[in-house]
C-alpha cells in the first residue's frame, strides 16, 4: 500500500528506490524507542527488531532485483542497479548471520539496544555506499559505515584491548578518509564534477587534450588510500589485526565480511566508472592512455601481491585464532584485489564470485570461533585442542570452511580462486597468478594448524563443550553451501554475471 502511494508522484519515485534504506531506518528507530521503554530488558528484542527491519528491506531488494535493471534516484546521486542490489543482498545475509552470532555469543549482555542501533546504522552506511554514484555520497556512505564501526569496536568500554583497538581504528580511519577527501578534491579540480559517471569521460577528455598523468595519478592514489583502508590492503592494513582482536567477535565478523565487501563494492564501481566505463580512460585507444591504464593495473597488481604475501606470512606465527583470521582476511583482500587489477569484465565477475565464497567460509570460520569460545572462554588455538572429537560434525564443517579458505576443491573458495587466476592470466599478469599460487600453498600450513589442534592434539585440561544447536546448524549449513557452490557454481555465476557492471552497458 505504501508503495502504491509512492508511485503516484514522480518526485516520490525516488523515495521508492530508497525504500530498503527507509525500512532499515525505521527498524533502527524502533530499536531506539524500545530501548527507551521501561521493562524491555530482554536482550533479544532489539535483535528481533533489527532482523525484522532487514527482512522488510530484503523483500524490497528482491522486488527491485526483478524490476528495472537500473534506476537513478535523487538526480543521479543514488543508483539502484544489479551491482548495488548484489551487495545489498550480500550485506543483508551477512548481517542476519552476524545478529544471530551476537545472540549466541555469551559475552554480549549489556546495552544491547545501543549495540543493534549502531550495527544497523553501519548497515545503512553500506547500503548508501554501494549505491552511490557521486563522490559526496561515497564519502557520506563511508563515514556512516566507519563511525559505527569505531563505536562497535570499542563496545566493551572497560576492556583495555577493546578501547585501544577503537582508538587506533578512529585515528587510522580519519587520516585515511581525509586523504581520500583530498583525492576527491583533486578529481573535482581536474574534471569539474563530482558525479562518478561524469568524471570518467571528463578525465579521459582532459587526458587526451592536455595529458596530465601526474595529477590524475596523485588523485587516484589518494582515493585508493581511502578505499584501501576500508578493505585493508597492505600499506593501509595496520589497524586490522588489533581491531579484529579487540572488537566483540560478531563485530569482527561484520567487519571482515560486510564492511570489507562494501569497500570492494565501492572500489569496483569507482574503478569501473572512472576507468572502465564507456567514454572513460580505459576505452581510449590513445597509446599514452593505454600505457597509463596498464601502469595503474600493474600498481594494483603489486598492491595485491604484497597484501596477500604479508597477510599469509604474518598469519603463520599467530597463536590467537581471531588474529589468525584477521591476517587471513588481509590475505584474502589481496586475492580479491587481483580481480580489481584486471580492469575489466572477467576481473569484476571473479571478485563478486570470490566475495560470495568469502562470505560463506568466513562466516563459518568466525561462527566456529564463537561456538568454541563460548565454552573455553578463550580464543587461543592451544585452548581449542581436542575440541574436534567433542563435536565432530560441527568441527568437521568448520574444517570444510578452512579447506575453502585455502582454496582447495571441492569448495566455493576453489572456484572463486580459479576465476581470479583466469582473469589475471588472461590479462597477461602471469607473475601475479604465480604469487597467488605460492600464497595459497603457504596458507595451507596455518589453516591446517587450527584443524590439527582440533582433531589431532589432546587438551591438557578437561572441559565440556556447551551444545548450541542454532550455532551448529548455521555452521553446518554454511559448510554445506561451501561444498554446494564448489560443485554446482552455475547459478552463482549467473547471478554474478547479472551484477556485472560491464555487462549492464551493452
Amino acid at each position, binding site marked *: 500500500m505504501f508503495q502504491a502511494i509512492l508511485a503516484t*508522484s514522480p*518526485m516520490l519515485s525516488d523515495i521508492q528506490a530508497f525504500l530498503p534504506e527507509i525500512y532499515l531506518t525505521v527498524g533502527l*528507530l524502533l530499536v*531506539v*524507542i524500545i*530501548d*527507551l521503554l521501561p521493562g524491555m*530488558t530482554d536482550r533479544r528484542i532489539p535483535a528481533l527488531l533489527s532482523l525484522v527491519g532487514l527482512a522488510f528491506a530484503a523483500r524490497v531488494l528482491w522486488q527491485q532485483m526483478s524490476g528495472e535493471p537500473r534506476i537513478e534516484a535523487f538526480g543521479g546521486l543514488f543508483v539502484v542497479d544489479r551491482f548495488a542490489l548484489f551487495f545489498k543482498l550480500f550485506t543483508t545475509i551477512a548481517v542476519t548471520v552476524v545478529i544471530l552470532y551476537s545472540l549466541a555469543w*555469551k*559475552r554480549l*549482555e*549489556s546495552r544491547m539496544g545501543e549495540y543493534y542501533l549502531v550495527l544497523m546504522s553501519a548497515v545503512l552506511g553500506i547500503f548508501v555506499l554501494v549505491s552511490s554514484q557521486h563522490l559526496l555520497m561515497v564519502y557520506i556512505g563511508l563515514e556512516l559505515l566507519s563511525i559505527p564501526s569505531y563505536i562497535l569496536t570499542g563496545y*566493551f*568500554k*572497560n*576492556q583495555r584491548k577493546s578501547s585501544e583497538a577503537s582508538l587506533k581504528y578512529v585515528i587510522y580511519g580519519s587520516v585515511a578518509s581525509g586523504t581520500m577527501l583530498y583525492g576527491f578534491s583533486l578529481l573535482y*579540480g*581536474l574534471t569539474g564534477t563530482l558525479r562518478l559517471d561524469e568524471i570518467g569521460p571528463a578525465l579521459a577528455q*582532459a587526458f587526451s587534450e*592536455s595529458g*596530465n598523468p*601526474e*595529477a590524475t595519478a596523485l588523485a587516484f592514489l589518494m582515493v585508493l588510500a581511502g578505499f584501501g583502508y576500508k578493505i585493508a590492503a597492505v600499506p593501509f592494513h595496520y589497524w586490522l589485526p588489533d581491531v579484529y582482536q579487540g572488537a566483540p567477535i560478531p563485530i569482527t565478523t561484520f567487519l571482515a565480511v560486510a564492511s570489507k565487501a562494501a569497500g570492494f563494492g565501492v572500489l569496483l564501481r569507482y574503478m569501473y566508472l572512472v576507468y572502465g566505463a564507456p567514454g572513460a580512460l580505459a576505452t581510449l585507444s590513445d597509446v599514452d592512455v593505454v600505457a597509463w591504464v596498464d601502469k595503474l593495473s600493474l600498481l594494483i597488481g603489486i598492491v595485491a601481491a604484497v597484501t596477500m604475501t604479508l597477510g599469509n606470512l604474518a598469519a603463520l606465527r599467530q597463536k590467537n585464532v581471531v588474529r589468525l583470521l584477521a591476517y587471513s582476511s588481509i590475505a584474502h583482500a589481496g586475492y580479491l584485489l587481483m580481480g580489481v587489477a584486471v580492469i575489466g569484465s572477467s576481473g569484476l565477475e571473479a571478485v563478486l564470485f570470490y566475495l560470495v565464497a568469502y562470505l560463506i567460509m568466513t562466516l563459518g570460520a568466525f561462527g566456529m570461533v564463537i561456538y568454541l569460545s*563460548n565454552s573455553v*572462554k578463550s580464543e587461543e588455538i592451544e585452548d581449542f585442542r581436542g575440541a574436534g572429537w567433542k563435536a565432530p560434525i560441527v568441527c568437521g564443517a568448520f574444517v570444510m570452511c578452512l579447506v575453502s579458505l585455502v582454496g582447495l576443491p571441492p569448495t566455493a573458495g576453489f572456484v572463486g580462486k580459479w576465476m581470479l587466476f583466469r582473469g589475471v592470466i588472461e590479462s597477461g599478469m602471469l607473475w601475479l597468478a604465480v604469487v597467488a599460487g605460492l600464497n595459497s600453498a603457504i596458507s595451507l600450513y596455518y589453516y591446517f594448524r587450527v584443524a590439527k589442534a582440533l582433531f589431532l592434539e589432546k587438551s591438557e585440561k578437561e572441559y565440556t563443550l556447551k551444545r548450541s544447536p542454532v550455532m551448529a546448524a548455521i555452521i553446518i549449513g554454511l559448510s554445506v553451501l561451501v561444498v554446494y557452490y564448489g560443485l554446482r557454481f552455475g547459478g552463482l555465476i549467473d547471478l554474478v554475471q547479472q551484477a556485472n557492471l560491464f555487462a549492464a552497458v551493452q
Partner: protein
Amino acid sequence: MYFDYTNVLIFFLVGIGFVGVNMVVGSLLRPSKPNPEKNSAYECGEDPIGPNRVQFDIRFYTVALIFIIFDVEIAFLFPWANSFQEFKAAGLGGLVFFEVLVFVSILFLGLVYLWAKGDLDWVKSTEAQRRAALAHRRAEEAKETAADSAKSESATELDLTVAAEAGHH
C-alpha cells in the same frame, strides 16, 4: 596543463627559504642574553600559571555533541523553509510538511534518548548509572538463581564499582 607545477615548487621553496633565512639572520644578529623571565612561555605578559596541559572536562564534549542535534536541525530547516512555498504552489505542501515533521521527530527522538540516558544532567547522572547498575545486578541475581550460566564479566564488575563509587558521593 591544469597545474603549473613549477610555480608551485618555486612558491614552496621560497616559503621554506624565507623562514629559514630569517631565522639564521636573526640568530646571527641578536645578542644572546637568556634569563628565566625570557625563557618562560608567553601568556599575554602575565606570569604563566601552571602547565598548559590541563585536564579538560570531557563533559564539554558531550554538550558539544548534543548541540549538534540542534545545529543539524537548523542547517536543514533553513533550505526547507526557503523552498516550501514552491512545493506548496505545486500542491505538495502537506507532503513536504509531513516530511520535515518526520525529520524533526527523528532528531527529537535523539534528544529524548539522551535525556533518558542521563546525558543532559551536568553530573552525568551518577544517579542514573546507579539505577542501571542496580537493575543490572538484580537481573544478574535472577539469572544466577535460575541457572548456572557463565558470568563474571568485566562489564558487570565495573558497573558494580561505579555503583559503589556513586554510593560514596
